């Protein structure tokens, strides 16, 4: 989970430590449709996972995103 959060912080150009597993996506500046595409790339590149965009849409927290790439 720690490594996943670092990847996500990097992608969203946030400071280390800004995100936790419980952080609601709705509260993250920069979490938008373009970030969702960035997350697909992250899932593919760093975890070799093909994530469906529909699955991203129902995620509520950073932890939900982590679960999509098999991180908990």
């Amino acid at each position: 989970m720690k490594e996943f959060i670092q990847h996500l912080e990097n992608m969203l150009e946030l400071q280390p430590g800004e995100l936790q597993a419980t952080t609601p996506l709705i509260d993250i500046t920069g979490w938008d449709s373009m970030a969702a595409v960035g997350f697909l790339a992250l899932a593919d590149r760093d975890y070799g996972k093909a994530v469906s965009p529909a699955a991203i849409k129902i995620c509520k927290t950073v932890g939900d995103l982590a679960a999509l790439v098999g991180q908990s």
Partner: protein
Amino acid sequence: MITTTLRGSRIAGICTVVPKRTAGIADLESIFGPEEAAKVAKSTGVLQRRIAGGGLCTSDLCFASARQLLNDLGWDPATVQAVVFVSQTPDYRLPATACVLHGKLGLPKNCVAFDVNLGCSGYIYGLWMVAQFIQASGLQRALLLVGDTSTYYLSDKDRSTYPIFGDAGTATAIESVRDSQISFALGSDGAGSENLLVPAGCFRLPHNEKTACRSERENGNWRSDENLFMNGAEVFAFTLREVPALIDGILAVAGWERVSVDQFVFHQANKFMLDHLAKKMKLPIEKVPLSIADYGNTSSASIPLTISACLREKLTQSQTQKMVLAGFGVGWSWGACAIEMGSLVLPPILEISEP
């Protein structure tokens, strides 16, 4: 995937024509504000697009391309036996724009002319069809006219499409030769048809007052049902799913090693996506030419446009280059070909003004 190797044809030349009118970052700033404009440009890699406008049609761009190319090749129009127009922005519901262009170009009666409705994958499908005609029906010379003026479909209040698409028209001359072959791999998945779509204006949902009216949609984007809708995340997921397999497939059909390929010319969908794909497939960056910064995503025209913009020096030489061309998107539809190209007639990209 449909795979095949067709014998007896080569590309003799390619010409690309774009509208003179441009739109760049300043245009995006005036609509979306400087911060959002910078963010969009960074994520798509598009710095400038060409905009048809003022009634300039895809067929006008393709006509200018074809006339220039016939002239530079020294081909008498009377010797052209096929004209295939691949586009999603035709002149009319009917007749086929290929027939209109056939007349304007002064092509002979012993010539086939028809349209194909495909976008991102269309150039490959067009090459595949023409190569079949040459092998199966013994045609000697053909023109493949490919392009789109997608900007007519866009809402300037939709960040997911407006900053990305540009307009261009191209002509490719294909001729019968001995000792030449082109391999193809092609596929489709209609489950994706709703992800790149102009919902209204044809027969499923004919134009009415309501379909022409813009309303607020997802993520604060505004558009009408007559505008182009694109689900960018679904497009990206589709590309990750199909394109690496497509490239593996075409290399297998052609019997080529990945490292022996000189250039991989991809449909210019989005720079972020192409960079990611190139890394994923371990393709050296110098073998993946990009034209998207200067022209945006020009739909069906993007492969020949990228050849015109980036590869003139290489492909006009007599030393042939091993090329993999790959298009993928609207449909979903995808295709790739493995083709040796050299000694091409490849004039610089031309600009034309509105009529």
